[in-house]
Each structure stands twice: as C-alpha cells, then as structure tokens.
C-alpha cells in the first residue's frame, strides 16, 4: 500500500468519524434548544388559556391555525397530569393547498397536556404545535454541515495528495538514484535538494553507506589485483625454472610426462592469473582509448590465426561477414573476440561446427557442443564452468564485462543444438 493511500485512509476515516460525532452532538443540541423554545411557546399558550378562563370563566374559542391546535376535553377531576410530549400535528391544508379534496396531513408536532377547571367542570387541555419549521431548520443545518464535511474531505484529499507528492519528491529522487546505483561507478550518489531534516538525514545516511560500500568494494578489488600481481613473480620463477630444467636433458618417460603436466598446470595458472588481472582492470575501467576498427578484418585475421586449431578439432567453420566499422577499444575487442572464439572451440566436439555471422547491428557466434542448453544466468558467472573444461572459468565473465564496458549487449541462447552468443552493438 502506498504511503499516500495509507495516510489518506487514516486521515479520512478519522475526519469522517469526528465529523459524524460532532454532527450528532450538533443535531441533538440544536434540537434540544428548539424543543425548549417550542415548550416555552406552549407554556405561554397555556398561560393565556388560564388567564382567559380566570377572567371569563369560559373556555376560550378555538381557532384553527396553521401551526397550532388546542383541544378541550372533559375529564375526571385530577385525572390529568401536566406533561410535554412529542406527538403528531394533524394539518388540514385549505382547499387550494390540498388540490382536489380535503386531505389530512400528519406532521410532527410538540404537545402540552394540561388541565383547566371552568366552574365545576374539569377539562383536559391539549395544545399541539407543529414542529415542521423546526425540522426544516434542522434539515437545512444538517445539509449545510454535510456539505461542509464533504467539501472538507475533498479539500483534505486533494491537499494531501499534492502536498505529500511534493513533500516526498526528494525521497523519490533519491530512490531513483539508488536504483541506478552502480558499485563500480566512481561517482558518488548525488544528493537531491531538500530542506527537510528527515530527508537530509536519509541523504547523508545513503551517501555514507554508498561510499562505505564502494570503499569496501574497491579494497576487495585492490586485494584481488595485488594478490594476482604478487602471484606473477613466483609463477614467473616456476616457469623459468621449468625452462631451465628442460635444458638438463636425459629424462625418463615418466619424468617427461611429469614435466609436461607441470608445464600445462603452470600455463593454466598463468592464464587464470592474467584473466583475473584483466577482469579487475576492465571493472576499474582502466582500459581506455578507442579507434576506428573494421570488425570484418579483425575477425578475418582471427580466423586465420586460429586455422590450425580449427583444423586440429576438424571444426567446420562457417564465416559470413558483412561490413561493420566500430569506434571502440581495439584491445578489448580483441580480447572479447578471442574469448568467444576460444569458448566456441573449447566446448565443441571433434568434427563440430562454428558459425560466425557479422551483421550491421550484431555479431553472432554459434557452436555445436553438449546438447543441453546452459542456464543463461549461470553462463556469465565467474568460475561457472563444466567440470571437463580446462578453461579458467573467467572467459565469458570477461566477455560480458567487456561488452558492458564498450556499451554492447551479450546474450546467450540455445537453439537447434547450437549454443549461440550474440553481441548487439
């Protein structure tokens, strides 16, 4: 649920409840005041009757009126108790009011039961006043109140919406920056302008956190770089010692096999180390510079360079090259193509197939291999490789990094037994 709707829900519900409550109180209070007013009128009327009876010793004549009726009724002496009551007011609207026939209309009314003695007769007196006007008044008051409530709610809703959106703008800006946060991006997260303390604090916390994370990441990369660097010297020594050992000659078959194994292990170690260093450099954007290269020529050269290796595996290599010029880093492009070619060869089988297609907007390298699709999310992960692979497990990671670095897109798909790597420029 959005903060705004949550906030709206709470404020609107509270407002409605409070308004309803005050509305009820308001209604009851007004009603009480008005009823008291009518009761006073009734009492005045009663008093007038008493006065009339006291002076004239007869019951006053009763006139029918729009809003007041008086009834006299003989009753047993002392049987009537003075009381106010809510009752009905029977109205007989005049002909022109009631259109065609005389029609009795009941309205709400307020009555006073009292008693008066005229001579030795005892009368029950009922004075009833119509409260229609009071009700009308109440309705108008209620209507106005309800209207005000609705207006208030609407205004509240709108202002909340506008205000909150405006208030939260720095938050949304920061969120956008966080989403596009890139660990290897050297720039700090820009702090959105705000004069609200909470957001200022949030900004500070985020920027402190990001710089800490970046520092840790940098340390880690520096460590990888340093470790790989430090490894180079001992590897160089091992390599040179092996070359020296080779010169001593007179080896048995067993010894020469051991030496061969050592050689290949050392060269794997060397390549692994170089790959790690290269990866760090690419991630650190340390390889800059670009020039215009003709991709078709580069691929052609590479195919010639690898000819013997293709032949060794009896690979059927199919090259379709369109013209494509790129303004990019030649060294990285070289590494990228080298890696993808290596990959296509290494995971191929004897007598397999490689298709290389260069089009205006993409380069596709397809190869036969294991007849199982690789998991696309695993393919470019570091050291994710088949157990039989002699590679470093970094080739495709490096390729992916290079593509990101050069602004290309590298995708893996599997179709008709072909592993397909597509670079989109």
């Amino acid at each position, binding site marked *: 649920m959005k903060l705004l709707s949550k906030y709206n829900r709470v404020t609107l519900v509270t407002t409605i409840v409070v308004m309803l409550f005050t509305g009820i109180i308001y209604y009851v209070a007004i009603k009480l005041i008005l009823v008291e007013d009518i009761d006073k009128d009734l009492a005045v009327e009663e008093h007038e009757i008493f006065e009339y009876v006291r002076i004239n010793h007869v019951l006053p004549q009763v006139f029918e009126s729009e809003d007041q009726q008086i009834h006299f009724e003989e009753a047993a002496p002392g049987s009537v108790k003075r009381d106010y009551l809510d009752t009905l007011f029977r109205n007989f609207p005049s002909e022109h009011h009631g259109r065609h026939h005389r029609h009795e209309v009941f309205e709400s009314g307020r009555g006073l039961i009292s008693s008066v003695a005229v001579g030795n007769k005892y009368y029950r007196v009922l004075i009833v006043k119509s409260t229609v006007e009071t009700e009308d008044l109440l309705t108008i008051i209620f209507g106005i109140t309800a209207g005000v409530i609705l207006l208030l709610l609407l205004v509240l809703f709108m202002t909340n919406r506008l205000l909150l959106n405006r208030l939260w703008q720095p938050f949304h800006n920061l969120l956008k920056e966080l989403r596009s946060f890139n660990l290897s991006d050297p720039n700090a997260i820009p702090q959105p302008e705000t004069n609200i303390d909470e957001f200022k604090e949030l900004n500070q916390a985020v920027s402190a956190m990001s710089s800490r994370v970046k520092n840790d990441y940098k340390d880690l990369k520096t460590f990888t770089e340093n470790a790989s660097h430090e490894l180079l010297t001992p590897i160089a020594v091992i390599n040179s010692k092996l070359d020296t050992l080779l010169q001593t000659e007179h080896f048995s078959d067993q010894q020469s096999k051991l030496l061969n194994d050592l050689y290949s292990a050392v060269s794997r170690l060397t390549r692994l180390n170089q790959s790690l260093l290269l990866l760090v450099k690419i991630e650190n954007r340390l390889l800059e510079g670009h020039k215009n290269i003709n991709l078709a020529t580069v691929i052609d050269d590479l195919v010639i360079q690898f000819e*013997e*290796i293709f032949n060794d595996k009896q690979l059927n290599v199919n090259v379709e090259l369109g013209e494509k010029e790129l303004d990019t880093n030649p060294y990285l492009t070289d590494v990228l193509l080298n890696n993808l070619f290596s990959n296509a060869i290494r995971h191929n089988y004897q007598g397999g197939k490689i298709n290389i297609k260069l089009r205006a907007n993409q380069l596709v390298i397809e190869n036969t291999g294991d007849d199982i699709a690789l998991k696309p999310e695993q393919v470019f992960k570091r050291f994710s490789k088949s157990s039989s692979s002699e590679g470093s497990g970094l080739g495709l990671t490096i390729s992916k990094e290079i593509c990101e670095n050069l602004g290309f897109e590298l995708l893996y798909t599997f179709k008709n037994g072909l592993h397909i790597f597509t670079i989109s420029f």
Partner: protein
Amino acid sequence: MKLLIVEDEKGLRESIEEYFAEAGNICETASSFAEALAKVSLYRYDCILLDITLPGGNGIDILKTIKQKEYNDGILIISAKNSLDDRLEGLDLGADDYLVKPFHLSELRARVSAIIRRKSFNGSNILLFNEIAIDLLAKSIKVKDQAVKLTRKEYALLLYFVANKGKVVSKNAIAEHLWGDGIDMVNNFDFIYSHIKNLRKKLLEAGCNDYIHATYGMGYKFTEQ
C-alpha cells in the same frame, strides 16, 4: 653478446643468466636500482633486460637515464604490469620491446635476439645459420641459395628455433609464441607437431641438414648435432 639482467627476484635472475650463459655471451646482473644504475653508467651492453619494479627505484628511471645519455644499448622491459599504458610508456621512452611476466625463457631469448639483430644491422638484413639464410626484411629463407617457401607461422617457427639454437624449447612456449593468447583453447599441443613436421620436411627437401630434434615428447631442440 653482452647482457645486463636487472631483476630483483633471485630465482628468475639466475634462470635467465643460466639460459643465456654460453660461449661468446657475457651476462651481468643487477638486483637493485642502485646497482643497475651504477652498471649502466659504467658499461655498455648489447641488451639490457630491465625489470620495472626494483628495490630502491623504478626501472623506468634507468631507461630514462640511458636515453638521456644517448647510449645505444638495446632495452627489453620485463614487467609484471600488463597494462597498455605501461607498455606504451616504456616503448615511448625508447625501450625496444616489452615482455610481460611470466614468460618462457625461449620467448625472452627470441626477443633479445631480435633486438640485437636490429641494433647490429650493419647494412645486412640476412641472418645466417650454416646453409640457411633468413632474410629478415622480406621474411623469406634460402637454403643453399635456393628459395624455400614457408608459411608465415613456419617462418616464425624457424626464427624462434634459430634464436634458441641448442636449447630445448617446450611445446607450450612454441604454441604461445605462434598462437598467442588464443592458445588456451586447446587442451594439448599435439597439433603443433604437424607444423614442425612440415617445416622439417621443407628444409630437408631443400637439402638442409636435419636440425630439428624432438626431445622426450616435451619439446624440440634446434641443434647442429
């Protein structure tokens, strides 16, 4: 030839020294910046193998000193730093070549030979080895004055062998020299055998002596014996 090996890592320095030590070669070594600077200002060498990271200073400064004094020594930088910038800086400052650690000694030797050949050009660009004459500019060879047609890789292979004559060169070193980085895609180097076989056949057919010998399945040796 007279060499100066500037390298602080003892194991590596000794291996290089041993690999280059043979009749007619003089190898001197320096293990620190000060020692290297002292030797460089006193003696002249055909080629200086210069490590960049040295105790007491940066090898680049030694390179600058040599170039400032306009000495004509060949300079091969051997560095653990494999960045384009370092490479370009070294070459811009006048180094003749740049080799990244780790390397095969046979590769180092081929590079040193190439530098020395360039330095002692003497108006001739023909490299002679008994009956084989290698034209370094035309990248062609003649055996007993008969042209032998070699492929680009066979030519490079022959040059590599000649530079490392008398040494056992491992299959790995040959493969890396000829195929560069791409070579890590193959699991064994048996396919270079056919290359060597072809080269050998062409040389033998031209009436050349058989100089290429396989050694224990590990590598090859180019030798007169």
